[in-house]
């Protein structure tokens, strides 16, 4: 003996075509089933057929929306191209700027070395001059660097 809850569920499944043949046999043997079945069928039949329809231009609108959205996806790319170009230019400038201090440093180093060399040569000359002066005064040979 099936309870009413099960009968109702099986009738709903039967109506949607989801009840197995085996269960349908059991349901058919149930004395309460025909009344429940008739009730559900009558309810379905009493429901008004919906005459609501989408507007006739719906497809056109959907196509237009899809087209616009596709374009709006592409649009940022178009906007991004000059931005990317600008970014590339900026990168180039920054890199060039980044390299410049190195060049300056190298140049400075070269200049410093040259100045140091020039200074050393002058200093040596002064030393030689001083040495010969001391030598002429004292009459003895003196290595000033040993002082």
């Amino acid at each position, binding site marked *: 003996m099936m309870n009413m809850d099960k009968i*109702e569920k099986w009738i709903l499944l039967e109506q*949607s075509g989801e009840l197995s043949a085996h269960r349908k046999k059991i349901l058919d043997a149930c004395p309460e089933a025909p009344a429940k079945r008739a009730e559900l069928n009558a309810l379905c039949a009493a429901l008004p057929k919906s005459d609501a329809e989408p507007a006739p231009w719906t497809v056109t609108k959907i196509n237009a929306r899809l087209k616009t959205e596709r374009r709006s996806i592409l649009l940022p790319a178009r906007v991004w191209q000059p931005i990317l170009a600008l970014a590339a230019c900026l990168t180039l400038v920054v890199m060039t700027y980044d390299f410049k201090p190195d060049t300056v440093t190298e140049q400075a180093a070269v200049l410093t070395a040259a100045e140091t060399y020039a200074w050393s040569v002058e200093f040596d000359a002064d030393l030689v001059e001083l040495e010969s002066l001391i030598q002429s005064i004292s009459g003895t040979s003196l290595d000033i660097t040993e002082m």
Partner: protein
Amino acid sequence: MEIDDAKTLAAYRSGDLEALGVLVEKYKGPLFGFIYKFSEGREDADEVFQEVWVRAIKNMNRYRQKNLLSWLFRIAHNLMIDRIRKNRPAVSFDAPVSEDGSPLGDLLPSDRLGPDHESGGHDLGVRIEAAAANLPLEQREVFWLRMQGGLSFKEIARVQKCSINTALARMQYAVSKLRNELAGEYREIQEAG
């Protein structure tokens, strides 16, 4: 998905704009009818209907189901949930408030099917629709997915992301509530049947 639907969709994606018209024409009846039940008028329903198709076409790559209509209903369901969340009232009429889990909406007097309405002698179908409008959202959705959309309970379960048993129980509650609300008319219905 039916082979025809797959072919039509493929044709649309390869640039045949008329292919969309074929699909919309094929499914507009059940889909628009269902959306219309949950919308605020024809214009609103039109907007939702268009949005369903736009989303469906945009996400076609992710579509793996067999039945296109069922998938369209799934999108419509998600859209409706989004809209309801956006316009959610401070107290939900569907939230259970009593010990037996009855939603608040069940405890309040019906605003659609008063005695005046009944005595107006309106069409039986209109009265059923008005009574169905008072059902809790999930039950109402199952009811119309089955009655208007013609979806199987397996498909309804997929749309609502629940088990077949839950979908069946919701339908059972819906029918039972309609039976109670339309007690007088039910005899009329049975006689008509």
